[in-house]
């Protein structure tokens, strides 16, 4: 190997090694929120935010490398009178070595890094998922252009007479895991609460599930993320996270209201 290649190769490999090590350290430091992501009120949202930031960092470095080289070459090797380009096909063993090195760096530092982190995060979230028997369960049904929210009522069973049904308003307890069972009665919708980092399609004919735990009392917006017709943009719901007692009280009110309507 010629010596003039050694320095760029060494610095390149060094830079990428730092690149592979730095983001985990940064993530471990607990960067909770950066300005480009919305406020996070869930216990699991940091998984998404951390990986987002790691991917952002890696891609930013790669992008910077490309653009710096691009601008440097264009300026440095712009046309000058009487000057000729170097005849270089880029197919000698040294070029093969560089290509393979680059491929390995991309494979390990970016691809496997991202895949691994994503798998670990999602496995952790899946592991902590609440037990459907004992958790606070809500059944959400999408319809053009409403969210139908169903609570099991006192018997804890869905599909019975004491079910409590509301539209576009969902109250959930703070500090408790909430399991949401999702389906649709017409077209595909998507149950989407950005501030809880939750998004799951509501697919007719099948049931999907998602869970979250809200960390503090707050009011959030529930939006539809999948195009479902002309009213897609206004398929908006409200999520109220409050104490367990407040949720129970609200549910009772809904029940009385429902009785009165009958």
């Amino acid at each position, binding site marked *: 190997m010629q010596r003039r290649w050694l320095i760029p190769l060494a610095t390149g490999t060094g830079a990428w090694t730092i690149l592979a090590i730095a983001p985990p350290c940064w993530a471990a430091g607990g960067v909770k929120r950066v300005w*480009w992501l919305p406020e996070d009120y869930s216990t699991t949202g940091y998984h998404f935010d951390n990986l987002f930031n790691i991917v*952002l960092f890696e*891609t930013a470095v790669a992008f910077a490398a490309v653009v710096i080289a691009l601008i440097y070459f264009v300026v440095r*090797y712009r046309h000058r009178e009487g000057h000729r380009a170097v005849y270089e*096909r880029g197919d000698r063993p040294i070029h093969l070595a560089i290509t393979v090195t680059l491929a390995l760096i991309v494979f390990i530092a970016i691809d496997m890094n991202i895949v691994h*982190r994503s798998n670990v995060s999602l496995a952790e979230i899946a592991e902590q998922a609440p037990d459907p028997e004992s958790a606070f369960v809500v059944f959400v049904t999408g319809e053009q252009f409403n969210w139908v929210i169903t609570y099991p009522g006192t018997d804890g069973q869905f599909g019975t007479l004491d079910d409590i049904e509301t539209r576009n308003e969902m109250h959930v307890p703070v500090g408790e895991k909430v399991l949401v069972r999702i389906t649709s009665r*017409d077209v*595909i919708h998507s149950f989407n609460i*950005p501030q809880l980092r939750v998004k799951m399609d509501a697919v007719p004919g099948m049931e999907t599930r998602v869970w979250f735990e809200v960390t503090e009392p707050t009011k959030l917006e529930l939006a539809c993320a999948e*195009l479902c017709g002309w009213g897609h943009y206004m398929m908006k719901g409200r999520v109220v996270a409050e104490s367990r007692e407040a949720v129970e009280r609200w549910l009772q009110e809904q029940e009385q209201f429902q009785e009165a309507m009958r």
Partner: protein
Amino acid sequence: MAEARGHHEPRTFLGRYIFSRDHKIIGIQFLFTGLFFLLLGGLMALVIRWQLAWPSDETHPLPLLAKWYGWEGGHMPPTFYLTLITMHGSIMIFFAITPIVIGFLGNYLIPLQIGAKDMAFPTLNMLSYWVFFVASVCMILALIFGAGAGWTAYPPLSVVATPSIGQDLWILALALMGVSSLMGAINYVTTIIQLRAPGMTWGRLPLTIWGLFYTAVLNLAVLPVIAAGLFLLLLDRWGTSFYIPEGLIVNGQRLDQGGGAVLLYQHLFWFFGHPEVYILILPVWGVVSELLAVFSRKPAFGYKATVICMGIIVGLSLIVWGHHMFTAGMAPMLSKTFMTLTTLISIPSAVFFLNWLGTLWKGDIHLTSPMLFTLGIVFVFAIGGLTGLFHAAEAVDLYVHDTYFVVGHFHYTLAASVLFGSIASIYYWFPKAFGRMMNETLGKWHFWLTFIPLQGVFFGMFIQGAHGHMRRIADPTLYDFLRPWQSYNVFITYCALALGAAQLLFVANFVYSLFAGRKAERNPWGATTLEWTVPSPPPHGNFEATPVIRRWAYDYSLPEAPRDYLVQTEDEVPVGAEVAAAQKR
């Protein structure tokens, strides 16, 4: 190798310019139709942007449209918005970009660059254009009647919620478009395999041809699948239920269809839809590799690696479609596989960048307008490609899926990279196709006035998307969490208007040069490939005698050559000298 089947030069106007079987005329027909739809789709984008910036602001009524339609308060109804986003997407992808990068580049360049008289099947070629023409008429009709299920047309929405004939026409238009592309693909593959001039080995083919070849192969693999998928969708609208599950209630009415699977369509659609992105960008990668070599006066760096990596991407693109369905309740086993395969695409892509930068390195760079747009592609495709990683990573995708982040990502790859590729190709091959040069000064202004606002438009979308801004919504101001970001929508709209205005320069340059541009010589750029050995524009049958190819496509700046390029037919330097020269250093 076989000769192109000879057909006599037609004498009537109709035979020569309308129902022509000459690949050059057919290519130009695709180009003009594509440019027409590009302007139409671009205007739609501006209307969409206007709506997003001032959705309920009475002081900004939509110019012209609001008056024509008599809209209350000057703002469009949401149904119209739905038709617009559907049409903008499908028109831009299938009727603007596809005819330019595949229809025009493929038809125009394949015979000229491989040294053939015409395509292998000239009549099929003509048919391919006219089927495409019928498809585009259907598309315009769909626009008039209104179709509204997005360019992806997911059922049940595409089946139940849009009862107008517009949706039927839309599906028909896409199916016909598929048939046309299939005819083209058969022709491209056959021509490249069978009609290469003597000496034009696979290793000597220009990279543009390699890109077009892979595109055609990919088209052959995926178009039948989407055609079947669309056919079933059309049948579902007429009463069958391939995609409709039991017991749907639409508008308070129970459907009597049942027994189908909603997600089946998504699998069929994305089995085609993901490769479609590569179908469009492979020719552009070829063009980038080629134009960088021409204007750096240097061989295309790592030719073999580029060709192999294109092949790897073709293979990978067929097995990653599931990354579009992570939020549809996919089993972890499957989603992990799709995620891993998707991230692997970054490896061959990285090699492209290495080779493109390698071509520039120690070159003799001429910043002509086609070169500026080519360098622009390296920049915007870096952004477009790298942001793909956010969607590959399942945990991130679950959050950014169906937000403006995705919109920014695919606009950087399609609207920016492929569009720049189309523009660069037009600047570069215009003198060959029309015999006149385009204006260089206007071209350079066009580049900068396109490049800068374009970043404002599409980079802004990443920031909005990261904040959770949903795509395809007609009125973002309804959401409290988006309200602080509404000023971004206004900013993007201003940038989009500037971007749109800059294209007037291109239109003016194109039309002016067509009639009054400086006359072009045979080889105005000093390029090595075969199309530059024939007159501009080339006569019917292209070559006076079948050319004999003596060298590969990229002999720029050979040390012992008298000038800084050797055309593929030239034999001035003894064989083997170039190898010796390369080893001497």
